């Protein structure tokens, strides 16, 4: 018996032993660890999503504006015949117009270099303007002309005018030598004080001593960084550095075969680095005359960056500054139209049959299993089907939206069927019974009552299916829907076309730097369409969702 009975004070026993408390603390620590793993996992996933979106926005954003020059061009009647304005020498016109940004004595080579500031399409832009304004002949016109990709990037600050003279590894080599204490101040300048073994095999005593002093200098430098196998290392030595050895040996031929300390001067960029600056050189992508002309244009205030409407209204082009998405958007639209026209009625019909009329038998079971499995078949397999059946067997043309739409309708059918069945299921039996009760046939009930009520759900499912089709790429590549479409005239469901995702793929594959930014921009446009479609689906669902 406890002492509780003796004293009047209610004894409060320790709720749990110290051992138990320790154990519980450990167990809670494990619990918190699990929770932390969960938060880390979510952080990772959401963080990666953030990085993805950020990197696309950062790289894609510049493509929504385009650097242009308001180039004053004198439409020389000598070069453009007023009777046939389309046939003029517009290349010459543009060249003349650019002359004002060059020194008078510019060579032909320099002139050609400067024309590369503008897009290669510049003559055609001027031509199109003159053809539509024939009265401009003999006058000076000002047409905004897109700059070519490198200069567009230069103007946007994506490519710098000057680049680091030294590579990252060259700076590392320098720092390692600094740590070895061989970078020393001598007589007001920094030099490299190295032990040099004056190899008798490489130098003749002379006099005057002859031999490969440069090799000796390189060998001595290499001896300090034996693990570096990089000729960029030797750029550290000034061109006259070997002379230091020559001078030394000339003064004392006995040094041959011995190891001496020699102070080598640094080459210019490394000397700057030693002073604590970061040495720069002009960007080798541009020539001096180009930079000069570019600066002149900027100074004149005719360079500006308007919103890049051409991204939406131009078709594809080999030149990134002229390339747009109009062809891809049209192709996507045509393909989705075909896909919708096929999969919407077929999907509804199949769903209505399976949900409302089908007897429970092995055939309908088989159909259901098939639909579920088709939803999980890799999309590239549908591309193979399209290639073998639609193109190979039925002989339909390659690259056309009709075939693309047919393949996409097969891909989206399971989604639409499943969504439609869910929508049909959600229509309460009371409605059917009411209609059947007044003598309507099963088909009438279906057509007049159930389908209209289920329509919002069906449309939502269809939009989601279409959004899915909008993002599919692989099957379209197989049926060749990545055609190069430089003009949106003559587009039709039986003409070669490209689509947004395949355009993204083609641009991503292009070597020009400007296409990196365009690709990101195209992706942003694609994501924009997807967001709009999904929002539409959400709105539709909320607007018409009925609680029975």
């Amino acid at each position: 018996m406890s002492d509780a009975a003796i004293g009047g004070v209610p004894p409060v026993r320790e709720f749990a032993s110290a051992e138990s408390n320790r154990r519980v603390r450990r167990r809670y620590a494990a619990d918190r660890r699990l929770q932390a793993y969960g938060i880390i996992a979510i952080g990772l996933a959401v963080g990666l999503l953030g990085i993805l979106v950020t990197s696309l926005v950062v790289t894609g954003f510049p493509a929504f504006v385009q650097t242009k020059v308001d180039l004053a061009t004198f439409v020389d009647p000598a070069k453009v015949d007023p009777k046939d304005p389309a046939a003029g020498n517009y290349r010459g016109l543009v060249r003349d117009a650019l002359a004002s940004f060059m020194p008078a004595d510019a060579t032909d080579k320099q002139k050609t270099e400067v024309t590369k500031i503008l897009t290669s399409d510049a003559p055609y832009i001027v031509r199109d303007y003159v053809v539509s304004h024939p009265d401009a002949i003999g006058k000076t016109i000002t047409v905004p002309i897109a700059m070519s990709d490198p200069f567009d990037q230069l103007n946007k600050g994506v490519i710098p005018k000057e680049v680091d003279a030294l590579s990252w590894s060259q700076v590392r080599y320098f720092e390692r030598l600094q740590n070895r204490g061989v970078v020393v101040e001598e007589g007001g300048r920094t030099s490299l004080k190295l032990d040099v073994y004056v190899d008798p095999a490489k130098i003749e005593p002379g006099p005057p001593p002859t031999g490969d002093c440069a090799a000796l200098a390189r060998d001595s430098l290499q001896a300090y960084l034996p693990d570096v196998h990089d000729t960029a290392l030797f750029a550290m030595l000034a061109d006259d550095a070997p002379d230091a050895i020559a001078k030394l040996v000339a003064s004392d031929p006995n040094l041959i075969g011995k190891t001496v300390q020699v102070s080598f001067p640094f080459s210019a960029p490394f000397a700057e680095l030693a002073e604590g600056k970061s040495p720069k050189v002009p960007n080798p992508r541009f020539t001096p005359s180009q930079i000069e002309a570019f600066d002149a244009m900027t100074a004149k205030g005719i360079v500006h960056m308007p919103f890049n409407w051409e991204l939406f209204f131009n078709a594809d082009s080999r030149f990134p500054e002229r390339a747009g998405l109009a062809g891809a958007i049209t192709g996507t639209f045509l393909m989705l139209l075909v896909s919708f026209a096929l999969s919407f009625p077929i999907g509804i019909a199949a769903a209505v049959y399976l949900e409302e009329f089908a007897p429970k038998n092995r055939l309908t079971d088989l159909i259901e299993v098939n639909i579920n499995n088709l939803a999980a078949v890799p999309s590239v397999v549908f591309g193979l089907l399209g290639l073998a059946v639609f193109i190979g067997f039925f002989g339909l043309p390659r690259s056309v939206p009709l075939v693309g739409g047919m393949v996409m309708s097969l891909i989206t059918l399971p989604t639409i069927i499943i969504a439609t069945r869910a929508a049909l299921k959600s229509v309460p039996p009371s409605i059917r019974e009411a209609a059947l009760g007044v003598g309507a046939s099963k088909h009438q009930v279906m057509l007049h009552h159930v389908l209209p009520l289920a329509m919002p759900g069906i449309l939502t499912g269809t939009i989601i299916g279409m959004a899915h089709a909008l993002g599919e790429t692989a099957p379209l590549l197989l049926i060749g829907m990545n055609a190069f479409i430089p003009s949106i005239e003559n587009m039709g469901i039986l003409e070669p076309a490209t689509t947004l995702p395949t355009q993204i793929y083609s641009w991503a594959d292009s070597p020009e730097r400007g296409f990196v930014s365009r690709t990101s921009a195209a992706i942003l446009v694609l994501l924009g369409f997807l967001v709009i479609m999904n929002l539409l689906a959400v709105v539709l669902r909320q607007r018409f969702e009925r609680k029975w």
Partner: protein
Amino acid sequence: MEARPVIRVEAPALPEKQEGALPAEQHALKMAARDVNLWYGEKQALFDVSLDILDSSVTALIGPSGCGKSTFLRCLNRMNDVIEGCTITGDITLDGQDIYAPQVDPVQLRARVGMVFQKPNPFPKSIFENVAYGPRIHGLATSKADLEEIVVTSLTKAGLFEEVKDRLQESGTGLSGGQQQRLCIARAISVNPEVILMDEPCSALDPIATARIEALMDELKENYCIVIVTHSMQQAARVSQRTAFFHLGKLVEVDETAKIFTNPTDVRTQDYITGRFG
């Protein structure tokens, strides 16, 4: 199982005319509830419930469905903590200690106050692992042999060992309903609890299985304090020593079982046990 020292605790000072307070004569006071109110969000489910629960006996909570008896039971081992938006006021003590005090950990509390549910809920593991679960997480066994002993003892106490001794490695979900419930009881007693709460433990079982569980309760009450919620008045009358009648979230009456069923004080209790409502 060694006998725990019984600690006699004087109940906290009671307000006048506390219906739930009954001086313990043969039995020590194990748990005591004072003025317990409980809300699920906005909705109040318990109103000023005060009830004493005595050791080494069976206390039955009866009442029409939705009267709050299960809710009250779940307060006794803080199972309501798990539910979002549930607030509780008042005191519940176990051996004189407030179980809602900040230094009391529900995890440790539940090791002392075990629970058996309405529907048998064995884990989808082997019979052995089902019973070993509690000792493992609470670190009650120091060796494998220890653990085996605990499992065998618990199964034996739950009256299940003879039936399953050859298939301890088979899944617990493969047993019959009554066996599953006894497995759950074995699981509950595997961690040496002092109180066992049973929430309508027989409602999903057939009469034969029910009889076995009731017999088991009778045995277990020698060493444990048992609180059972039941909708069957016969069962309350058969197994319990004290019965509490709940109605609309209030504790209407609590007394010796014999008295409740023969001579209830409150008219509502009378109406209920005579079958006028329920």
